[in-house]
């Protein structure tokens, strides 16, 4: 018998390591250089960045005058953004003509808004009902008292002294909070089988949607006073507020109606077969499903409303953008990049608010996704 052994006498050589499936290099290869066309696009993208970033950096940071600088520093050839101008005029951009001694009143309103809206927006936070009641009933009353004053020893501040970010936020928060319920009511009215209610809702929606917002504000500011009895005037701020809210509720109604049409006939019929009343059918069966479908549309309207608030300059209100435009002519900060810096600042603030709204809506969509998503 020969010595036959089934036991290996020497070790096999190491096989080559498998291709790595993770790590930065793999990611780069897979996502940026997978094919020749990908490689080309990546290189083009890099070239674009190399072209755009250094001048942007130079303008926004490198050659810019930081807050605390002087107007003389801003007033040189080839200067970057004049952040000193923004820092120095920040009060005007936030409060407008609001008397400086009374800024604390606005600050309290801002703080209340943040303290009430953040827990309301967080699904896990407790006391939702109390929170909602505070936000919908107590907060508006407290805000009006604080902002306009005239009672409890607070100095009266007329609305023409309101301005800046404060006005932008007030109009958009009020517009958002009122236009959703109004829009739902209008959408229900439009679907109603009662002819008078239906025609009123249809007429209102179609009339408002057929007219640009700027026209509505223009009517409110120029034509309305002519129709009123002599000497009677409605506060301009209130006019703008009503105009923006009505405008946005008409759009909201159509968004909600779209959601309701996406609900199958069977849901309506099943709800009716259970013997539920109209309001219960709508409130418990139809609307919860319909609204969930149209979250992107609703938030779209909110964002549009937020940006549309800058049109209130038509009625002479100074919202954030108009406050910036006013100070862009301020002679004590007259410098070559004054206006550009102002506009960049306004754009950044608007972007911050709109982007947060959009992220929050995506979060809500994911949270409310119960398997209907197609």
């Amino acid at each position, binding site marked *: 018998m020969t010595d036959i052994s089934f036991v290996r006498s020497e070790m096999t050589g190491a096989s080559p390591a498998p291709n790595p499936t993770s790590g930065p290099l793999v990611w780069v290869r897979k996502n940026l250089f997978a094919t020749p066309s990908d490689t080309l696009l990546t290189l083009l993208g890099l070239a674009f960045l190399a072209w755009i970033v250094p001048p942007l950096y130079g303008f926004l940071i490198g050659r810019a005058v930081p807050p605390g600088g002087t107007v003389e520093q801003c*007033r*040189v*050839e*080839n*200067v970057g953004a004049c952040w000193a101008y923004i820092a120095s005029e920040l*009060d*005007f951009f936030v*409060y*407008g*003509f609001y008397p*400086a001694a009374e800024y604390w009143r606005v600050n309290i309103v801002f703080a209340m808004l943040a303290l009430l809206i953040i827990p309301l927006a967080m699904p896990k936070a407790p006391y939702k009902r109390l929170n909602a009641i505070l936000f919908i009933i107590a907060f508006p009353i407290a805000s009006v008292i604080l902002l306009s004053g005239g009672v409890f020893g607070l100095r009266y501040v*007329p609305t*023409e002294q309101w301005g800046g970010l404060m006005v932008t936020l007030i109009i958009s928060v009020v517009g958002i909070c009122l236009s959703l319920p109004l829009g739902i009511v209008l959408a229900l009215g439009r679907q109603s089988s009662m002819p008078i209610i239906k025609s009123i809702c249809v007429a209102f929606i179609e009339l408002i949607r057929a007219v640009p917002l700027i026209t509505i504000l*223009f009517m409110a*500011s*120029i*034509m309305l*006073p*002519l129709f*009123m009895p*002599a*000497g009677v*005037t409605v506060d*301009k701020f209130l006019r703008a507020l009503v105009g923006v809210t009505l405008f946005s509720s008409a759009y909201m109604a159509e968004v909600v109606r779209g959601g309701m049409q996406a609900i199958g006939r069977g849901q309506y019929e099943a709800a009716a077969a259970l013997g539920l009343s109209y309001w219960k059918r709508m409130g418990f069966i139809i609307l919860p499903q319909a609204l969930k479908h149209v979250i992107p549309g609703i938030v779209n309207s909110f964002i549009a409303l937020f940006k549309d608030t800058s049109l209130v*300059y*038509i*009625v*002479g209100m*100074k919202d954030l953008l*108009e406050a910036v*435009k*006013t*100070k*862009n*002519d*301020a*002679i*004590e900060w*007259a*410098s*070559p990049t*004054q*206006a550009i810096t102002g506009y960049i600042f306004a754009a950044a603030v608007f972007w911050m608010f709109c982007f947060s709204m959009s992220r929050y809506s995506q979060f809500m969509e994911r949270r409310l996704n119960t398997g209907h998503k197609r």
Partner: protein
Amino acid sequence: MQIKFLAIAAAAALTFGATAAHADTLADVKAKGYVQCGVTGGVAGFSAPDANNEWAGLEVDFCKAVAAAIFNDATKVRYTPLTSQERFTALSAGEIDILSRTTTWTMSRDTQLGIKFIGTMYYDGQGFMVRKADGIKSALDLSGAAICIESGTTTELNAADYFATNKLEFNTVVFVDQDEVVKAYEDGRCDVYTTDASALAAERSKFAVPDDHIILPEIISKEPLGPVVRQGDDTWFNINRWTYFALLQAEELGVTQANVDEMLGSDNPEIKRLLGVEGDFGTPLGLTKDWAYQIVKLVGNYGESFNRNVGPDTPIGLARGLNALWKDGGLQYAAPIR
């Protein structure tokens, strides 16, 4: 322009009903305790928020002067920023008592809109700005030069008229927005920038080196800017007009904010009448005897207001020019108080 036209037409058509009702503005103003003054959204030197975010400017001072005359308190004014489209409607609808918003006095406005011009707070006119390095000394040298201009404005028409009249070659670069026009001029896309001379001066102060640019001496249009009130209330009109005259008269007599108290003891009969030491010119207007004293004490005279807001020592740096008193070769002339 269309919007503006519509607004004017609407205002003209509907003011008739509105004007008759506001017969006693002075009583209304006294009752509510302040003067409501329509101003611009922000034109540096004329009406704009100052460093403390309070309204300031030559035209704001006029409203303060009226408040001083009525209430002995120049702070009893509330301001309504107005766009140029809504200004006349706001006035006829009674939302404001005085419109003091860089408004050019023209015949159609004065006769068709149910409004009355008080006088001319500032004689403006269209001018040209060029780079000093180009060596241009007069608007007559501008033949063929590229001119940055805002489209659809009277500025464009005035310039076209001027160039045609003087047989110069007219070569424009047109933009829709004032900021764009300035940027284009600054970037060297054109040789000349034209708009109202006061605005030219304000824009010039924004350049990196303002002294590299000069404003040519020619003024090619008449833009008398003044405060406006509603037609049909002669008492209110008189108060405003004589407030304006008092501002001028005080400067002419050398009465300033600083020396007005000494001037009470002056022997000059004109000063005595102005300050209410001799005769009573306030009561017939529905004011107090010392109405003009209060104006000068609280606001200053016309020259002081001019120098404080737009004068040579401010960043805007406008010379008095046409706005000097008549005895200094300008056009500001007040009827005598007697």
